[in-house]
Each structure stands twice: as structure tokens, then as C-alpha cells.
């Protein structure tokens, strides 16, 4: 007997018991749909974290000024100018793990243009800053070397600032004033969106570090070459901890710190937090998938249960089939095909339900979901495996029946 005939027999038997077939499938449908939805939701959360890491710029280490203690009151981070522009250049030059080290001077002020104004943060930067943050300029251009060295009166503005000052008009070549210094807008930065802590990363302007120091921050800053922070990007593939370690050593050496003396700077490894979060969201995805798999397992047990009932209920039918020439193997195949067909049809419906469910969650709850092809293949494969695994025992039981006893069964 060939396989199409077996399939035909199994489909006939399933059609004869529509209600029972549908109920059996329900377990698999729910299980498969749950697996797909859970993996999609978990994948969405993971992708969000990954995006945040990317928006921050991956492999970032921040170096901040140390604190100053005066009259018993301990100042916070940055209260004492202990790191300098040259520290940044030295790190970039001497530590091979470091791709770029960007010194920044931070300040805030009112950006004024015509009769509108907007309070924002400004950073005095070098072109390395854009490289470190992987930040593109969508309109206009970046800083020229002459503007860097000559404290050029130019500015790059973030999307939020552009919108608030210029609305829909092009900000290029417009002049804005920051602390009374007129600056020409030469470029607009790409949109970065919110940071992990909910800060609007587009609400800033960037100016050459020399401009910030000499023209805006004024006399106190002009003398020293101290900076607020140095943002360091570690080379792809290099070990973050090695880079961290070598940076500390270099800074301690440059700052002439004795052994046993505390660091006069702070190092923040930003991506660590995000990586921890990514790891936890991965664990979350796994957990969700595991929970959903349990329902698939329960669905499989449901199939076994129904198939066992079905074998008992159809004992006489099995006896008859044997009497008219079915071999044990034909009976085994028939019941196995019935179970696998149930779970595969259930799996197919479950996949459709899972995809529409994940889409609905994304639409209605506004959660981000990521449907992955592999999770769908996995769920379908699992459904088939469940059919074979849980269908085998009842099928084996059916095929072991003796024809005369099966025929006599009441």
C-alpha cells in the first residue's frame, strides 16, 4: 500500500470526526501561536535594546573629570577640571584598542534666532565626536579643519533645535546666537530619538571645541585645556576591559598619580548597562518561548489523549481493517499520519494566528514585535515532531491489536 492511499485513509477518518479533529487541533493551534507571538514580543524587546545601543554608538567608554573636595564639601563628578584635551589625543594615539577619543566641553544656553529662542545644551567637540557617536549629518556639512583650529563661528544643530527654531524652513546658512555669539548653521544632525533614560538626544547643538572654549565659555576655560568629558570608542572586536584598563593606566601616568593614590577621573562604561539589559531581554525571550513551549507540549499530550480514545473507540474498525487485509504497519501508519496531519494543520493555523496575533499586538498595544522566520520554522517543526512523538504510542497500540479480539470488541 502506498503513501497517498494511507494519507487518503487518514484524511477520510479525520473528516468523519470533524469535531474531535478540530478540538484536538486547538491545543496545537494555541501552542504554536503562543510560541510565535512570545518570540516576536521578546525579539521586539531585544531589538529595541539593540537599537538603543546602536544609537548610543556601540563600544563607548566615557571618561569624566574627578570631584573636588573643598572645605569638607565633596563636589560631584566634574567639579574639578582634571582631564584635558591632550589626554584625549594621547589616548587616541597611544592605545591601539581605541578607535577614536573625542574630548567634549559641555554647556547650556539660549539659542536665539530672530524673535524665537530655545534653551538647549551645546557641546564643544572635535570631528571625532561624530565618529564616536556614529552620528551622520543629513543636511549641510561638518566642521572644516580651519574652523576647528580658528574657533570658527559655525554650528551643527540637532533635529529638535532645528524644529523649534526654524520650523519647516531650512536652517542652513541661518545665523543663531548663543550667549551673544553669532554662529552660522552649517549642518543638521540625523535624528537619534530618545536615549534609554528618556532624554531627547536631538535637543543639542555642536560647535568646534575651540569656539566653545574661546568664544562662549569665557575666560576661565580659555586658559586651561580641560574638558568636561572624553568619549572613547573602542575598536570593533577589541576587548572593552583591556581598553578600559590601558586608558586608566595612561591617564594615571599622564596625571602623575602615585601608586595607592585614587584616580582623579571617572570612567563609565556605558554599553555595559545596555549589554546587561540586552542579556536580560534575551533571557526574557527564552523564558517566554519556554512558557509557550509548555502549551505546545500540553497540546501534544492532548493529541495523544484523543488518539488513545480514538484507538479504543475505533477498535472494531481497526479489527475490520485488519480482516480485510490491513497489515499492522498499515494501521500504524494510518494513525500516525492522522496525528501528524492534525498537528501540521493545527500548526499551519497556529502560524497564521501567531503572525496576525503578533501584528495585532504591535498595532493595538504599540509594542514592538519582531517576527522571525526561524521561530516560524521552529514552531512548525515542533508541531510536526509533537504529532509524531505523541501519535506514535497510540498508533503502536492500535497496530498491536489482534484482529479477532478487535473485531469482537464491544
Amino acid at each position: 500500500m502506498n503513501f497517498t492511499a494511507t494519507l487518503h485513509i487518514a484524511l477520510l477518518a479525520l473528516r468523519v470526526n470533524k469535531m474531535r479533529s478540530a478540538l484536538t487541533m486547538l491545543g496545537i493551534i494555541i501552542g504554536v501561536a503562543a510560541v510565535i507571538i512570545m518570540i516576536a514580543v521578546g525579539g521586539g524587546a531585544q531589538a529595541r535594546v539593540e537599537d538603543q545601543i546602536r544609537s548610543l554608538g556601540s563600544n563607548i567608554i566615557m571618561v569624566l573629570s574627578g570631584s573636588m573636595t573643598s572645605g569638607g564639601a565633596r563636589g560631584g563628578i566634574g567639579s574639578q577640571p582634571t582631564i584635558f584635551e591632550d589626554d584625549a589625543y594621547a589616548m587616541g594615539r597611544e592605545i591601539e584598542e581605541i578607535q577614536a577619543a573625542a574630548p567634549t566641553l559641555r554647556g547650556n544656553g539660549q539659542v536665539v534666532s530672530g524673535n524665537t529662542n530655545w534653551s538647549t545644551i551645546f557641546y564643544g567637540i572635535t570631528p571625532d565626536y561624530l565618529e564616536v557617536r556614529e552620528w551622520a549629518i543629513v543636511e549641510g556639512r561638518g566642521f572644516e579643519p580651519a574652523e576647528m583650529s580658528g574657533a570658527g563661528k559655525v554650528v551643527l544643530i540637532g533635529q529638535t533645535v532645528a524644529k523649534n527654531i526654524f520650523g519647516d524652513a531650512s536652517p542652513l546658512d541661518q545665523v543663531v546666537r548663543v550667549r551673544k555669539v553669532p554662529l552660522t548653521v552649517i549642518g543638521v544632525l540625523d535624528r537619534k530619538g530618545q536615549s534609554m533614560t528618556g532624554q531627547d538626544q536631538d535637543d543639542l547643538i555642536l560647535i568646534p571645541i575651540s569656539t566653545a572654549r574661546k568664544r562662549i565659555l569665557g575666560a576661565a576655560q580659555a586658559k586651561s585645556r580641560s574638558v568636561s568629558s572624553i568619549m572613547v570608542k573602542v575598536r570593533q572586536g577589541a576587548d572593552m576591559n583591556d581598553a578600559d584598563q590601558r586608558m586608566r593606566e595612561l591617564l594615571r601616568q599622564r596625571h602623575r598619580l602615585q601608586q595607592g593614590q585614587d584616580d582623579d577621573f571617572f570612567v563609565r562604561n556605558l554599553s555595559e548597562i545596555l549589554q546587561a539589559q540586552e542579556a536580560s531581554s534575551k533571557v526574557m525571550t527564552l523564558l517566554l518561548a519556554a512558557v509557550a513551549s509548555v502549551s505546545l507540549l500540553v497540546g501534544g499530550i492532548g493529541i495523544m489523549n484523543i488518539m488513545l480514545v480514538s484507538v479504543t473507540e475505533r477498535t472494531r474498525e481497526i479489527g475490520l481493517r485488519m480482516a480485510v487485509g490491513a497489515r499492522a504497519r498499515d494501521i500504524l501508519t494510518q494513525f500516525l499520519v492522522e496525528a501528524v496531519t492534525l498537528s501540521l494543520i493545527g500548526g499551519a493555523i497556529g502560524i497564521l494566528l501567531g503572525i496576525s496575533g503578533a501584528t495585532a499586538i504591535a498595532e493595538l498595544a504599540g509594542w514592538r514585535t519582531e517576527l522571525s522566520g526561524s521561530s516560524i520554522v521552529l514552531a512548525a517543526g515542533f508541531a510536526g515532531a509533537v504529532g509524531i512523538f505523541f501519535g506514535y504510542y497510540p498508533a503502536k497500540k492500535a497496530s498491536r491489536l489482534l484482529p479477532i479480539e478487535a473485531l469482537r470488541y464491544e
Partner: protein
Amino acid sequence: MAEALIRVEELAKEYRMGSNVVPALCGVSLDIAAGEFVAVMGPSGSGKSTFMNLLGCLDHPSGGRYWLDGQEVSQLSGDELARVRNRKLGFVFQHFNLLARTSALDNVSLPLLYSEMPPTERKRHAEQRLAQVGLAQRMDHHPAQLSGGQQQRVAIARALVNDPQLVLADEPTGALDSHTSVEIMALLQQLNREGITIVLVTHEHDVAHFAGRIITFRDGKIIEDKTNVANDAAAQLQ
């Protein structure tokens, strides 16, 4: 003597009930020629059902030998027996054993599903057999939509669909009223006249007397084997 369709020699069957061995059939020998219509009688526990199961290749004998159509089948494996049943035997049961919620046509073609026959051939054969038992108009009916007599006709059509050499009928009239019983016997007699060998188990003398030979069992042995001048069931119906 010409080659018999059925030849059994010292056929025996014992059942094990815990530590007890219960003999059900104790050394039965007989020949049945092709074209015979044999009724097997006897009280319950006489071994007639065991004998039928062995003839039907549904069970293995504990001893003795059995040739069906010249082939020794007493030593065959389960799968080989299934093949013999599929090719050479047809079964008619007391309770019809039709598949519920399945059309008469599908019920009749069931044995062919286990043969190598292509689907269109299967359908043609099944239709022919249903017409032969007078149910050409009822092919799409489910068993629940048919009377007892009609259901048994479907079952007989099923027994015939593989062109068997032997039809084994186990109390085929046991679940039918007397008029319908005679109708069914008329059908079996007609099939027998067309050349099909029939062995029928019954405990009703009226039914047995439609056969040409009556074999009586008691305590696992044949106690009587006589030819019979068969009553004509078709004539009784008129």
C-alpha cells in the same frame, strides 16, 4: 480427489487462561471443495468460532496444518496472512461492521485500499458489487441511512469486492428479522450459484438448511458432517 479449496489436517487451537490451557479446537480434519456452500453449526463454546477464525486467517493454529487454495497458510507471518485475507477471503459479520459516517461506496472499496489497485479501478469495482447486491441507488448513503438488510448487503458487497475465492459469513442473519434473513440467504445462494465458495456459521437450523453441507461441532470436534438438500431461499420469498 480434486485439489480442495480448503484442506485442514488435525487443526488445533488452545487458549491460555492464566496457568490453565483451554483447548478450543482438538484436531479437526476436513476438505471443502471450491463451489460448496457449507453451514457450520454447534452450541456456543463448541469451537465453531475458533474454527472460523482459523479458516479466515485471523488467528494462528496451535497445531495441525491448513492449506487454502493449495497454499499452506498455517505457518505464515501476520503480514502474509493479511495479504491472504486481502486477496482470497471475504468476511461477512453478524453486526455488519460498516464504518460509520462513511458512504456505502467507500465502505465497499475499503479492502481495495489495502491492495495495489488504482483509485478509478477501486471505484468501478465497488460500484459493480453494490449493483450486484441490488444497491445501485444507495451508493452515497451512510450506514445510518440504510436498513439492517441493506447494511448487510453493503457488507456482502464489501466481502465480494476483491473477488475472493472464499466468503466466510459469521452469523450473517443474527441481527436481522426472519424475512430479511431469508433475503440475505437468497443473495448468498445466488452468489454461490455464481461460483463463490461460502462457509457460514449459524446456530439457526432454518438458516443452516439453505446450505448444501452442514458440519456440526461440539467440544472442539466435528460430530456430524452431512450433505443437505438445500432449501431454495428465493422460492421461499415468493
